[in-house]
């Protein structure tokens, strides 16, 4: 088997060198610079020596709270790198003896920002500690700049790095769920490779779309970066705050800032190991005999027999007397298995491990700062087979520096390398879904048995060679455990150079250029897997879908660059008047290309390479490019800190539209009134720290075209088709589709009204926003008569309106000196409605004017027919299906026409259907309580929402009774029978016969309440006492235990998971994860 790390071998040598050389150069530069700039090469050694040799001082002082000016009790003071320490007394005083004159003192207290202060020979050191709370002075990152929180006029959601710390999450997306109101994150699978789906403020367009994610100003994939490197995440929600990003900001903007170097030399290391288990609510009938009797009964409905009387007798014999002799029987040459196969146990591991290591080194002086970090994540899949299990690795390297070269110029280079490697069983055909694996009949054997003899005594030698081989009936098992591999490695390298000019006071000019090289090498190996059947008289080796064998390699090579430059000028000279002007320019370019080669017929399964094949070969490739250009501005005016005004705008140009309609202009404006600053509010200043109302209005554009880079250019398809004529592949060219010459931007207009409140010494923080967003000229799939012969080009023909609100409340308090607690509630809601759409027939399964997004149309259930007489008397249900009898579902006659029918599926004639629910998420919430006691802290995070769901009735879907080969206990217990007339489900029927789906057509009875609350996170953290770790030369040390998806509550019927219902194939269930981690810093 090819090991995954061999993929490194695929990296073009030039790129490899580039990575190496840049990395090494960077490190050398750091080391040299640190000497030049006066950072001690090894501060620990330096201090130790100093204690012995230098003059020692007695130090004392008082610690106060920076916001309240009150003295603080119980503050920990530590001499860095030494065993000396102290705690403040009831008056906030402390004293230390025998401290080196050059020592650094560390002041820490739970809930406050830790400070490190060099003593520099002083004997009195009074310090005020700043609470870690989100203060008004906090700086918030916005598009092309920053702003004080107090001066924020738009709607911006903020999450700091604390949200990402000490959590057993594989990627950043998982951590942000429920944190920022109306940043909606759905995680559709427990697969570590699955990206979190992001959405800001609800349904935006019928064409879908994602928010723009910018990491340090360049577009990146959120889940590729290392969560440990993130300093803050800010979500720009309304048009006003996002306007500087123009045409790509229609779905909101997520700004991620990475960490910077901090004063001194900081080295920290963390390690975490966790175990995950799929969350499954299955209760399968595992006894073959019980199962087969039941399946025969269900089959009777369609005139079939699952197992004959003879087979049943054999199963019963083993059921009653489970001895090895009874396990296998040969009848007429047919090998029968009489035992009970537990596929779940065979295929799925109890716990999938994950490991995470992070190391970072950072430091800063007045002249320079640097931050270097390395992160490694390894996650294994759920397969109960070490060799074959999915193995996913992520490596992250981030190197940042900032050099203040002169008073007016600083430069900041940055290198970010994100790599991923994945190695998992090759996807043959059919599916590898866990859903299928866990739903196989217990009667199917897995491997060829070892028996004393087979057909006749003494023939064991002849059969010995097959022992242990998989039966074809073992479905996915042989493919997953014995097959080839699907591998990929991605290398996402970003090189950035930034420069900041501050030529005169008030003026700041910033430029940066980033270049991305993205390569992805993937390989699919379809090797042959010999399997056997159970007919010994017609015994043969079967390869099933594992033949023909092939190998396929694909390599993607993408390049992208981003150039930003902007200047801002602040004028704060005139009392009470504050002006700020920012203008800037942005240009981006991208080019993607790929080459793919496939060759059939591997010479041997052991050598998996294009060269080692003998069959047909097929190659493919492609390239595409795009470019963007934009200019933007922002004007701020603040009068007496009370009246705030901000105007934003952007001109955008995109290569995706024809020259004439290429430009778009997207302006916005916002105002705010800080009432608490008014003189008439003076009396409230004691308890009211801030009261501000905000309003904004603006328009953004959307060029939602996905990977369609040339929507206005008509092109013909071409390629190779297999074997149209005599042999091999032949080339073809297909006609072009229709394109529209009138395409233009979708526009999204948002009105936002907000309120910020800060009360009781910043103990209570409250932010609320209400908004209305109108999406106009959405590109719409136009319906034309089918004889047009192709899809009509999309036209800008539909409108949508979304209304919503969001709020965030935080309360923080301390009880005595040892206890502290806080609680945060984030709550949001939104609802969208179509306001313009062309649907001439009024078909309700299409969009129509007035449609609420997520509507479920269905029948109202009357009940279950308790007798055939009832069937005869009830309105005819022939339009839904035939063969109705006692035990089937009875639908309610809503339109009083004596028949139950779907009508013409239109609004005017919906038959007996109506709107019975809505799948859109409502009232999404996150609740985040935290309790601290001395060195302990406990952090909980609950997340949830409200919605309806109707389970898919497609074949093999796991909710519906007798729809798959695995039978659940509750299918039997909850199905109608003469003895169980109050049952939830109708009488057992074999679902895979189309006509039997009649009982499950969308209706009120089986509509699920998919609302849930889930304990997403639980972290118990312990900071080791300073006295202890000081002796070890550490500045901090933490140990934590954490859980992810620890608990949930929902009314949804098993086996559904309320959070994970929208994927059609449950390939990878959600997982519960438990972790233990340590974190130390020097």
């Amino acid at each position, binding site marked *: 088997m090819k090991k995954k790390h061999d993929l490194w071998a695929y990296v073009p040598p030039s790129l490899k060198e580039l990575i190496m050389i840049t990395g090494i150069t960077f490190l050398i530069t750091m080391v040299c610079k640190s000497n030049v700039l006066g950072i001690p090469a090894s501060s620990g050694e330096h201090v130790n020596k100093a204690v012995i040799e230098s003059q020692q001082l007695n130090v004392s002082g008082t610690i106060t709270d920076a916001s309240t000016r009150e003295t603080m009790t119980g503050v920990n003071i530590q001499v860095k790198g030494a065993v000396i320490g102290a705690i403040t007394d009831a008056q906030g005083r402390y004293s230390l003896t025998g401290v080196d004159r050059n020592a650094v003192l560390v002041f820490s207290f739970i809930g406050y920002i830790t400070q490190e202060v060099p003593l520099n020979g002083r004997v009195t050191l009074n310090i005020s500690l700043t609470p870690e709370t989100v203060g008004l002075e906090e700086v918030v990152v916005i598009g092309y700049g920053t702003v004080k929180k107090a001066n924020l006029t738009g709607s911006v959601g903020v999450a700091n790095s604390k949200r990402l710390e000490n959590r057993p999450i594989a990627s950043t997306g998982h951590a942000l769920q429920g944190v920022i109101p109306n940043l909606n994150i759905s995680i559709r699978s427990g697969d570590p490779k699955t990206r979190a789906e992001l959405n800001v403020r609800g349904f935006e367009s019928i064409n879908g779309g994602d928010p723009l994610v910018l990491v340090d100003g360049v577009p990146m994939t959120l889940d590729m970066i290392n969560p440990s490197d993130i300093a803050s995440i800010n979500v720009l929600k309304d048009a006003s705050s996002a306007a500087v990003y123009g045409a790509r900001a229609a779905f909101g903007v997520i700004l991620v800032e990475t960490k910077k170097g901090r004063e001194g030399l900081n080295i920290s290391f963390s390690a975490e190991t966790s175990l995950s288990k799929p969350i499954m609510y299955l209760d399968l009938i595992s006894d073959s005999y019980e199962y087969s009797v039941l399946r025969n009964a269900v089959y009777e409905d*369609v*005139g*079939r*027999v699952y197992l004959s009387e003879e*087979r049943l007798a054999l199963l019963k014999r083993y059921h009653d007397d489970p001895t090895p002799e009874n396990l296998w029987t040969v*009848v*007429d*040459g047919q090998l029968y298995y009489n035992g009970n196969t537990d596929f779940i146990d065979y295929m799925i591991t109890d716990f999938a491990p994950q490991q995470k290591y992070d190391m970072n080194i950072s430091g800063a002086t007045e002249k320079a700062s640097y931050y270097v970090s390395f992160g490694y994540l390894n996650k294994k899949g759920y397969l109960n087979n070490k060799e074959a299990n999915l193995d996913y690795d992520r490596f992250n390297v981030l190197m940042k520096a900032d050099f203040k070269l002169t008073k007016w110029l600083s430069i900041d280079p940055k290198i970010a390398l994100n790599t991923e490697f994945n190695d998992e069983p090759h996807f043959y055909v059919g599916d590898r879904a866990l859903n299928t694996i866990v739903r196989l009949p217990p009667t199917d054997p897995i491997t060829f048995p070892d028996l004393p003899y087979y057909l006749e005594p003494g023939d064991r030698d002849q059969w010995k060679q097959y022992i242990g081989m998989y039966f074809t009936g073992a479905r996915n098992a042989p493919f997953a455990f014995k097959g080839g591999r699907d591998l990929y490695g991605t290398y996402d390298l970003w090189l950035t150079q930034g420069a900041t000019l501050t*030529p*005169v006071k008030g003026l700041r000019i910033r430029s940066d250029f980033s270049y991305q090289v993205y390569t992805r090498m993937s390989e699919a190996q379809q090797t042959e897997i010999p399997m056997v059947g159970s007919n010994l*008289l017609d015994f*043969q080796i*079967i390869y*099933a*879908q594992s*033949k*023909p064998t092939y190998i396929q390699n694909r390599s993607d090579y993408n390049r992208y660059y981003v150039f930003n430059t902007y*200047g801002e000028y602040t004028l704060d000279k005139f009392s009470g008047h504050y002006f700020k002007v920012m*203008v800037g320019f942005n240009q981006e*370019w991208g080019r993607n290309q790929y080459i793919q080669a496939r060759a*059939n017929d591997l010479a041997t399964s052991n050598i998996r390479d294009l060269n080692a094949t003998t*069959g047909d070969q097929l190659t493919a*490739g*492609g*390239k595409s*490019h*795009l470019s963007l*250009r934009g*200019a933007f501005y922002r004007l701020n005016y603040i009068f007496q800190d009370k009246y705030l005004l901000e105007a934003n705008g952007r001109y955008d*140009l*995109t290569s995706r539209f024809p*020259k004439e309609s*290429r*430009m778009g202009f997207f302006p916005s404006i916002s105002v705010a009134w800080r009432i608490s600053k008014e003189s008439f509010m003076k009396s409230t200043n004691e308890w009211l720290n801030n009261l501000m109302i905000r309003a904004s209005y603006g328009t953004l554009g959307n060029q939602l075209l996905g990977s369609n880079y*040339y929507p206005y250019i*008509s*092109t*013909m398809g*071409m390629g190779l088709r297999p*074997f*149209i*004529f*005599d042999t*091999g592949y032949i080339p*073809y*060219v297909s*006609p*072009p589709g*229709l394109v529209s010459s009138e395409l233009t931007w979708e526009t999204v207009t948002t009105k936002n009204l907000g309120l910020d409140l800060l009360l009781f010494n910043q103990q209570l923080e409250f932010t609320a926003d209400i908004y209305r967003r109108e999406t106009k000229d959405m590109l719409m799939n136009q319906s034309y*008569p*089918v*004889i047009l*012969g*192709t899809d009509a080009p999309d036209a800008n023909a539909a409108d949508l309106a979304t209304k919503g609100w969001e709020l965030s409340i935080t309360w923080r308090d301390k009880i005595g000196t040892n206890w502290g607690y806080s609680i945060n509630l984030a709550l949001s809601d939104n609802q969208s409605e179509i306001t313009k759409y062309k649907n*001439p027939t009024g*078909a309700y399964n299409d969009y129509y004017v007035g449609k609420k997004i997520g509507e479920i149309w269905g029948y109202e259930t009357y009940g279950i027919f308790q007798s055939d007489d009832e069937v005869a008397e009830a309105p005819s249900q022939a339009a839904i299906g*035939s063969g109705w009898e006692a035990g089937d579902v009875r639908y309610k006659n809503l339109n009083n026409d004596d028949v139950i029918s779907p009508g013409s599926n239109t609004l005017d004639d919906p038959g007996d259907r109506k709107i019975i629910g809505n799948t859109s998420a409502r009232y999404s919430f996150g609740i985040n309580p935290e309790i601290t006691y001395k060195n302990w802290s406990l952090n909980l995070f609950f997340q949830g929402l409200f919605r309806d769901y109707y389970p898919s009735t497609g074949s093999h879907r796991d909710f519906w009774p007798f729809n798959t080969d695995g039978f659940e206990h509750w299918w039997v217990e909850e199905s109608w029978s003469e003895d169980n007339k109050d049952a939830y489900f109708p009488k057992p029927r074999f679902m895979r*016969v*189309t*006509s039997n789906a009649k009982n499950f057509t969308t209706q009120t009875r089986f509509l699920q309440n998919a609302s849930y609350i889930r304990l997403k996170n639980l972290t118990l953290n312990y900071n080791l006492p300073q006295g202890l770790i000081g002796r070890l030369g550490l500045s901090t040390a933490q140990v934590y235990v954490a859980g992810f998806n620890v608990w949930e509550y929902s009314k949804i019927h098993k086996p559904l998971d309320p959070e994970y219902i929208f994927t059609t194939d449950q390939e990878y269930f959600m997982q519960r994860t438990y972790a233990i981690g340590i974190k130390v810093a020097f």
Partner: protein
Amino acid sequence: MKKIKVELGFLFFAIFLFYSCNDEYLERYPLDRISMETFWNSENDLIAYNNNLYYMAFNDVNVPILKGNPSGSSHSIWYLDLFSDNIAVGSSRLGTSYEIVRAGKHFPTTSPRDWGYEGWNFLRAVNIGLENYDKADVVQAVIDKYAAEARLFRGLFYADKVSRFGNVPWVDKELNVDSEELYLPRSPREEVMNNVLADLTFAIEKLPDDWGDGNAPGRVNRWAALLFKSRICLFEGTWLKYHGGTNAGTWLQESADAARELIEEGPYSLYSKGDTLRDYNAYHRVLDLTGNPEVIYWEKFEYGIKMNSTMGYWMEHRGGATKSMVEDYLCIDGLPISISPLYQGDAKIEDVFVNRDPRLRQTILHPDDGLYYMIQYNENIIPGPWIDGMTGNIGPACGSGYHVVKIYERTMHIQHGQNNTSTTPSILLRLGEAMLNFAEAKAELGTLTQADLDNTINKLRDRVGMPHMDISNIPVDPRYTGEGVSPLIVEIRRERRIELFMEGFRYDDLRRWKQGKKLEIPSMGILWDAAAIARYPKAAVKSSVDPVSGKTYIDIYKGTDYENPVFDETKHYLWPLPLDVLSQNPELGQNPGWQ
């Protein structure tokens, strides 16, 4: 301050630049695609464009004009007889459109998919080709060859639509969203079929006799076009004759003429090695038909590149022939079983084969033939047929007891029980059909001679060692005297049913002969008496009494939704238009009886 001015000046300059920046940097054209402007140059371009038409015609289930065995689906030609009284499936696959139509339980649905009112993308591709072939820098004769392919395909496309829906809108150019054709009513059948005839005539005029591919499956030649023409004209001629219409004779004559030209002038002959007991189905069971003298057009498959599921699906569908089908085979004296003294009855399945047309035993499994066809894996296995529900050491089960072996070839079924690993080729056009078309058209015209019969049907009979049809001594089968057609036509239709069994003609034939009522007869299987129940232990089949004979037979669809088939003559000869199509253009109007 001066510095500020410089800096600000620079910035404003940048903004100014930006306005003039809608330049070439933002012009990004496709790097890996061709356009209409850069295409249509050489003969190679024409070939590549038409290759796509072939691909769609073979593989698009919505364009069933070269319907072979598309991969991974149950849309192969071998399934088409499921619409009819020829074959039926056991219970495992109930609910497909085949059983629904067979039972007359279909109704208008919203999706164009359901009843085949689609494939218009194919028509568009043809029309775009026809509007652009002229641009190529090659001589007219070359352009005409490819235009002839395209027009043949358009003719086939429309003939299929007319057959199903009657009147259909005629479109012979590329449409755009503002074309008025989108909202016009349907064109009358007569007009569309005249256009079809013109397309076929053009194709026959311009297509080469031979593309130089040695009858490996390649491009369609003139002979293929002639056979298509005889098929389509026969359909239209008999449709007009039996459903009422004018000019039936013209169409029948066109059919006969086309067939005659193919039979007399074409390079084809019936496949025969002189083995009357094997020749009929032998060439249906080989992988490579290159050089086969009878096969005019076929689709080839190859393991690993292009495969199908036909064999696997067919075996698993448990399909079997019906009693009605089996009873239509003559006895070796040339007489139907109703009057032949040689008929041995159907008390047990072996009896059915005694003294019968040798094609029966080359179509339906005789218990002694299981090993020969490798359908019975070895001699230790209970001989077939194996009925649904039987378990133990058996071969593949079948619903009716009449297990079809006509196309079964185990070696082409590379991996048993695995989908999409078969390499069964599809014979799309063979000379045998031309002979039957010719005889039928002439008989309907009333101009059939003994020489015509000797040149066609009697050749088919010679291949299997059956006595000749003698125009002066046509047997009268009492079962069919009430059908209102002459015994000669009864026998020609019988010959067609036997010879072309499972090749996809029966349902269309019954419709054009206006014999839909035959579909109201339930699909029965073998005699199901005490002896049979004992012989096929555990068989899970249902049975009914045959009203004609009073005996009990397997009743394949009994107990299902398709138990009592109906055929409403006022509507079932045509299929319904999908509701969505009607709502997009109400001018089209629904077919009679489906409103």
